[in-house]
């Protein structure tokens, strides 16, 4: 094996940084003086860059579902034991009659009928009326001791900063609950919360304020799982102009191919289902135009295939001229 052949077998390892110091030194020296091996190294770099392009990033919704299932399985298999508790919890317990709590991570989301909203309750509910339980020392929340000093009676005085949690319960149609849910659906810090909230709101999409929130999520949420959930909720309202407009936007600009596929299905639902309906009268010209525009820009083979299939069913060209 001559030097060029030897070096070329080492290029992959060189890029992975897995050659020994001496091997790397020898390869570098050779490549510096050999144009062909420099080209081979460049090709190897391109190949590595190409590998990166086929890496699949799991959908946020898949991760969320996986976490939920794991929580459920662990909770079912082994009921959580009491948390090991810190000195502050013990102090608080000694002052109140709170029963010992179970592990926070294993607390599952509340049932639909009882909406439990933690930090949001404190952050966003200005005045929610007497049905909301008040905060007590026993309420869990983020706490920080700012200062501690002896009090005159021999005790201690502690100044505590805390983010308060409150539990808000009510029916889905309660205005206060509705306000919280509409805000939670846009909470930028927690995609899991938005996903759950949008799922709950889907049951009330007949209300225009809820529908507007779902459309907002469909158009603006950075998480594809949340966008997909919002699209599910809008499914029964697909004939409404504002929903069709949002779906058209998804079709042409959503970065996720799964979303674009779903948008095609919704905008063209019913087309081709009946053998007598192959003339395209059920599909308005705007949608045909959007699909044709999509064909001009779509790179994903699966989405193209779905779009082409619909255009074929309505005897429309796949191109615009």
């Amino acid at each position, binding site marked *: 094996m001559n030097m060029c052949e030897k070096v070329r077998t080492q290029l992959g*390892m060189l890029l*992975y940084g897995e050659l020994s110091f001496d091997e790397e030194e020898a390869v570098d020296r050779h490549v510096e003086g050999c144009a062909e091996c420099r080209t081979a190294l460049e090709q190897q770099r391109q*190949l590595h860059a190409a*590998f990166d392009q086929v890496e*699949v990033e799991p959908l946020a919704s898949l*991760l969320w579902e*996986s*976490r939920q299932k794991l929580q459920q399985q662990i909770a079912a298999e082994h009921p959580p034991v009491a948390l*090991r508790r810190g000195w502050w919890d013990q102090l608080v317990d000694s002052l109140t009659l709170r029963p010992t709590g179970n592990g926070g991570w*294993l607390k599952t989301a509340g049932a639909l009928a009882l909406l439990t909203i933690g930090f949001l309750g404190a952050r966003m509910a200005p005045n929610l009326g007497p049905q909301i339980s008040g905060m007590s020392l026993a309420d869990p929340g983020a706490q920080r001791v700012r200062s501690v000093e002896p009090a005159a009676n021999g005790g201690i005085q502690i100044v505590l900063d805390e983010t308060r949690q409150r539990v808000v319960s009510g029916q889905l149609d309660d205005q206060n609950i509705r306000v919280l849910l509409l805000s939670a659906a846009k909470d930028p810090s927690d995609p899991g919360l938005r996903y759950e909230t949008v799922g709950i709101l889907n049951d009330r999409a007949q209300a225009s304020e809820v529908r507007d929130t779902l459309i907002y999520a469909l158009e603006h949420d950075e998480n594809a799982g949340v966008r997909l959930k919002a699209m599910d909720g809008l499914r029964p309202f697909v004939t409404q102009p504002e929903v069709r407009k949002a779906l058209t936007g998804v079709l042409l600009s959503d970065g996720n191919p799964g979303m674009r596929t779903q948008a095609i299905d919704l905008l063209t639902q019913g087309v081709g289902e009946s053998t007598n309906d192959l003339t395209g009268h059920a599909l308005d010209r705007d949608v045909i135009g959007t699909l044709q525009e999509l064909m001009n820009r779509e790179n994903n083979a699966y989405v193209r295939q779905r779009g082409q299939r619909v255009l074929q069913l309505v005897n429309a060209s796949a191109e615009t001229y």
Partner: protein
Amino acid sequence: MAQTAGIQADEKALIRAAQEGDQDAFGQLVRAYDKSVLRLALNLLRSPEDAQDVYQEAFLRVYRNLNSFRFDCSFHTWLYRIVTNLCLDHMRKRKVRREESSQVEGLDGPVDRMDTFQELRADGDPQRSMFSGELRRGIQKALSELTVRERMVFELRHYQGMKLRDIGETLGTTEEAAKNCLFRATQKMRVALGDFV
């Protein structure tokens, strides 16, 4: 270096707390690793359902056996040993059964059904949208033709960014054996994809 040592100390404290029954600590451990576990399984198995199965089984095993973890190796190595074994089992069964590939036949030829599941990569490289479907299919075909162990080592080195020494430890082999495996994998890939670059 001091920061890494701090992170390791934090992790050790979390593990000890979880071993004593602190569910929040266990939850934090899961969240520290679960996205990369799911990504590894999804890339190796090319099936969201199978990837989710591996995720569940791996973390359930961690949960059940955490008390037997004695810090003989890093938690990462221990967890990945579990995950890679589960993935290898899936991949071997699939090879034996010659199960379905991730591709389905479409009007324009084969279509990767993962296209309908995957999230765009976070770096959002605009080149991606221009990426040739042919090259993409070529890479996937070349990957599927690697042996199960070559595929695993390649995945851990290229996509997970693990060093060969850690890969060897995770897979219960030597660094040298992992290096040979990676070498064979990259040579095969280069031959299979030579026409594209």
